[in-house]
């Protein structure tokens, strides 16, 4: 049968790339991580909906980086990777459920709640650009909102923000990139009102 032979060849190639990465070969490591993405997506798709797959891919890549000393070059790389990806998928889904229980998505209640600090006479005129941006930022997912808050609004360094949020610097960069992309897309569809 051809398929098992191809699988074995792929596993041997990935194992060799990982052994090179353990020795410090950055090119082999980057190629390995790219090659891992389809495998991780395959594992993640069995556990999570499509909108969570990218999160699981990223968390698994970071775990591979932190756990690379545990890979035994005499054993299957695919088996090692599969367990890590599966575990990260479970962690992401558990976190999603916890946040879903804690947070309430009620945009109409939010919109209709009066702000006691605002003079009601001029409240209707308060829909300025800063207010619109603030609302857009508040509507971002928690991770992206944190990245904007710490890196842009508070102008903290990556290291300081990583320490405060408990996220890696790479994750903060990714979240900020996504947040800016989302905000850009939003205001392209509906430009700011002066």
């Amino acid at each position, binding site marked *: 049968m051809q398929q098992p032979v191809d699988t074995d060849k792929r596993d041997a190639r990935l194992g060799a790339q990982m052994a090179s990465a353990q020795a410090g070969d950055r090119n082999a490591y980057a190629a390995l*991580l790219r090659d891992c993405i389809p495998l991780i997506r395959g594992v993640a798709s069995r556990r999570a909906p499509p909108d969570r797959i990218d999160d699981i891919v*990223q968390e698994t890549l970071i775990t591979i980086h932190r756990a690379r*000393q*545990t890979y035994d070059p005499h054993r299957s790389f695919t*088996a090692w990777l599969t367990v*890590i990806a599966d575990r990260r998928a479970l962690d992401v889904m558990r976190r999603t459920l916890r946040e879903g229980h804690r947070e309430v998505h009620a945009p109409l209640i939010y919109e209709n709640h009066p702000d006691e600090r605002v003079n009601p006479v001029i409240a209707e005129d308060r829909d300025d650009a800063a207010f619109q941006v603030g609302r857009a930022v508040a509507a971002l997912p928690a991770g*992206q909102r944190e990245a904007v808050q710490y890196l842009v609004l508070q102008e903290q360094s990556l290291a300081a923000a990583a320490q405060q949020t408990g996220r890696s610097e790479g994750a903060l960069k*990714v979240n900020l990139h996504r947040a800016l992309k989302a905000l850009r897309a939003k205001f392209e569809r509906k430009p700011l009102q002066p």
Partner: protein
Amino acid sequence: MSAQNRPSHEILIAELAGDLAPVTPLPSPARRASIWLAAVIFIGLCGAAFADLHAVTVRLAAAPDMWIAMAGSALTAVLAVFAAFQLSLPDRSRLWAVLPLPAAMMWIAASGVGCLRGWSIPGTHAVTTGDERDCLLIIVGLSIPLSALLIVMLRRAFVLEPALTALIAGLAAAAAAATLLNLFHPFDATASDLAVHGVAVLVVIIAIRLLGARALGSDQKFRATV
């Protein structure tokens, strides 16, 4: 652009590759377990220098339940530490946790038989409250350095099951301490004495399970994205 080549993945891959430093693959679980067991034997040899080894030999030879229990606790320590190092690796089965259970059953059963024996071992004295307190302190006291060393060694891996791994590590440390206790046990086993041993072992296992799980799981308190 394919899903595989999303910009965010490429950014992360570049970040990780740029951060790459050479690492030495961990030694096998058997080798790492041997290192820890060597530390246990070293502590035992140090204790033997202060123990009445002749009395220990006489005691163990006089009652089969005593040496079977000692063999059970020693075997439990060996198998539990091997299982803990297996569990510390991401690609190893959780079923390794079952490995020390048969030896633990033998240890518990043989210890219980001591209570049913209708005669006392020659050359031993009746156990006192102070003796029982000393047993508790010896088991807990020996477990502290052994479990601390074991947790430090386990952290070099990447533990995906910190609670289970810490539980088995606690069993290894407690079993090793109970084995070494035989060097300082100049009295016969009684029900209260064995109850104190049992309490000490449980205290050690629970403490390591709680504290060790936090220590082993702390490296994983990170989140890439929401």
